[in-house]
């Protein structure tokens, strides 16, 4: 196995582990924004598309790469914008529901 592949593999595995670790108990509220946020991230494929676009010589790959670039950019731009719109909805409110819960109980009890 070439050292490049080995290190690529290492990077791959580590990134997977990060991915597993990075999502902890998320409130259901954030499921859709999180999905949308992750969705924007794989727009990084634009980088790859740019490479093939530059290297494209024959018509076929020029067309393919054009579509690829357009697709990828749409993924990136649209993804981040729509995610941001979803998140604009959340006013920052430090109050944790649980504590409120308890005080509420107090008031009642």
């Amino acid at each position, binding site marked *: 196995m070439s050292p490049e592949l080995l290190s*690529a593999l290492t*990077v791959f595995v580590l*990134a*997977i582990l*990060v*991915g*597993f670790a*990075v*999502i902890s108990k998320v*409130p*259901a*509220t*954030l*499921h*859709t924004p*999180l*999905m*949308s*946020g*992750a*969705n*924007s*991230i794989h727009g*990084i*494929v634009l*980088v*790859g*598309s*740019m*490479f*093939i*676009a*530059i290297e*494209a010589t024959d018509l076929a790959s020029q067309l*393919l*790469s*054009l579509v*690829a*670039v357009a*697709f*990828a*950019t*749409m*993924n*990136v731009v*649209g*993804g981040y*914008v*729509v995610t941001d*719109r*979803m*998140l*604009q*909805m*959340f*006013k920052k*409110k*430090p109050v944790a*529901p649980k504590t409120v819960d308890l005080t509420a109980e107090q008031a*009642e009890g």
Partner: protein
Amino acid sequence: MDFNTVSDIVRLAWLAGASCFVIGLMRMNSPATARNGNLLSAGGMAVAIAATAILLFARPTADGSVNGTGWVIIVIGVLVGGGAGLYSARTVKMTAMPQLVSLFNAVGGGAAALIAIDDYLGLKAAPDPQINVATVLDIVIGSITFSGSLIASGKLQGLIAGKPIMIPAGRIVTVALAVVTVVGAIFLWAGNLSVPVMLIILAAALIFGVTMVLPIGGADMPVVISLLNSFTGTAVAMAGFVLGNDVLIIAGALVGASGAILTKLMADAMNRSVLNIMIGGFGGGEGTQTAVGAGGSVRAIGADDVAIQLAYAQNVIVVPGYGLAVAQAQHAVRELAELLEDRGVDVKYAIHPVAGRMPGHMNVLLAEANVPYPQLREMDDINPEFDRCDVALVVGANDVTNPAARRPGSPVSGMPILDVDHAKSIVVIKRSMGRGYAGIDNELYTNPKTGMLFADAKDGLAALTAAVKAL
């Protein structure tokens, strides 16, 4: 500055970008930091892309000349794609966002597949095994997500019927397609270089994506989209292997893994297993409006009576549902709630994880109407409190309150529900006896404790506010 230095810097920039993605995702785990996290991630993306442009520009070409057409392609592509993305993202309606996300996911997967296809067409001989594996996987997974996500998007948009569509002998077709793909892949991995076979695989994978998603009900689409999102991540990582580019590998694997976890979380929230969803679940799409009593008499009630109940209650729990979203009644409900609180009534909102049409749909709507975050209570938090609640005000919610879910045998069986029926008294605002997403009757409405206020959510709430003021 010689090219090596440039490429070193570019690589470090890519690494920095990737780190931003990770930290961004972390911050998106909690409402307070979520937005800033998304911006951070976007910043990382900008850095990574800018760095790439610099690298491509600084890179010495074979004949020393700059590849003009290449740059033209990139510019045009970016303008077109960016414009389309920006416009759709800016103009989409709140409730239509999931299908848009699905669309973006589709194009992302498509791009990943195109990279591998282009790479494959350029091959003179079969590449070394590992590259070969990555290329084929990229084509297959990328195509599946592309077609699959388009279908999912169409279903949520209503372009395609939400209810499960059974293709004649669908299962067999799907399996057959899978077989074709696998056999083809193995053939190529065996070291054969064959564009036709590649194209066959491509076609098979595309159709597979369609047949995979068609039979799944609209209710499960959010989960499906999340799964396909994770697929796209994997495809992008594969593209990274093909091009030997670390940042693609990192970002792709990151999304692949986190997407998988997220999919599980979402499925859990709807109390389904991912597998069971993919094999085809319930959720027939928009409820048929044909009124059906389904045994047991229904008690209709007027706004004034409800107003009195509410005004003199000690605590009221509002149960918002899809109907609230359709009627855009979030502001109306906040108004009523505030009015009641001024009168000393303790008002809370019971948020079911899958109320509405996307996870967190209700939180998003109510947050938009500036309902104080602490008043929004997740299902497990609030359920025990229904026993002590004087009036449960159900606004355009149906399935998430249906006691049938507690019994086996119903399409919603097993879905955790809000224990609305434990409240001392129940008021339901909806337009008719129409059914909800699952397309079944709700015995809550025939419960003697329940009064039905037949009205559009917005109008109904406005009427209530007026009536309470009048008291």
